[in-house]
């Protein structure tokens, strides 16, 4: 799925390059007829729009799926120790204790 979306994105980018090349050719044509440049020709605008749509879809699909952040959802059930043993975070019942913000060092 990611590879298909990637090819779609590359294809969209190629369409954009082709549209850029068409616009450059159009501008050199305008230089010959000495007209002003107001907007690219209609088919270039359509091409840009299609390229933008394809890249839009690819941009939303290629980076991957969203993962649920609920700690109790069914897809978050597997628990494993973190690779770095120096920093481990646990979800234990200590969270019901109120947070004491005025702890002082007893000496």
């Amino acid at each position, binding site marked *: 799925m990611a590879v298909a979306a990637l090819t779609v994105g590359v294809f969209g980018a190629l369409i954009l390059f082709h549209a850029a090349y068409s616009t450059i050719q159009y501008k050199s044509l305008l230089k010959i007829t000495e007209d002003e440049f107001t907007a690219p020709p209609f088919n270039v605008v359509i091409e840009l729009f299609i390229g933008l749509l394809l890249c839009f879809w690819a*941009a939303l699909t290629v980076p991957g799926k969203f993962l649920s952040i609920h700690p109790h959802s069914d897809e978050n059930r597997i628990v*494993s120790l973190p690779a770095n043993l120096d920093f481990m975070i646990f979800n234990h019942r200590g969270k019901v204790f109120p947070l004491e913000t005025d702890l002082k060092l007893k000496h």
Partner: protein
Amino acid sequence: MAGHSGSGSSDKKSSNGVNELLTFNAENMQSNMKIIYYSRTFLSIIGGVVAGILGFTGLKGFVFYALLMAFTSLGLVAKAKFSIHTYFDSWNRVLIDGFLGGLMSFVLFWTFAYDIAHIF
């Protein structure tokens, strides 16, 4: 039972137990934020190229960028299947985050494409 298979799906940001959603899986949250960032940056670049080829100058380009970001937000909300709270902790993250960072990429590629298509 538990093995060293990858990093832990552990939790962070616990509260005093009143609000359930304050405890969430931070690693997945970060992964979701990365996805949003990549999507927005890529679309800013593509939008910059399109704006440059179309010949937008001045305010029209920024309006185009705002429209593009609005559509991106819509697309991201649709990707999250409209239930934001399953994947993020607040609406701001999916709607507003990455807006200004993408703006710089947009302007860069906008000027780049405009130069290539219209000046040289």
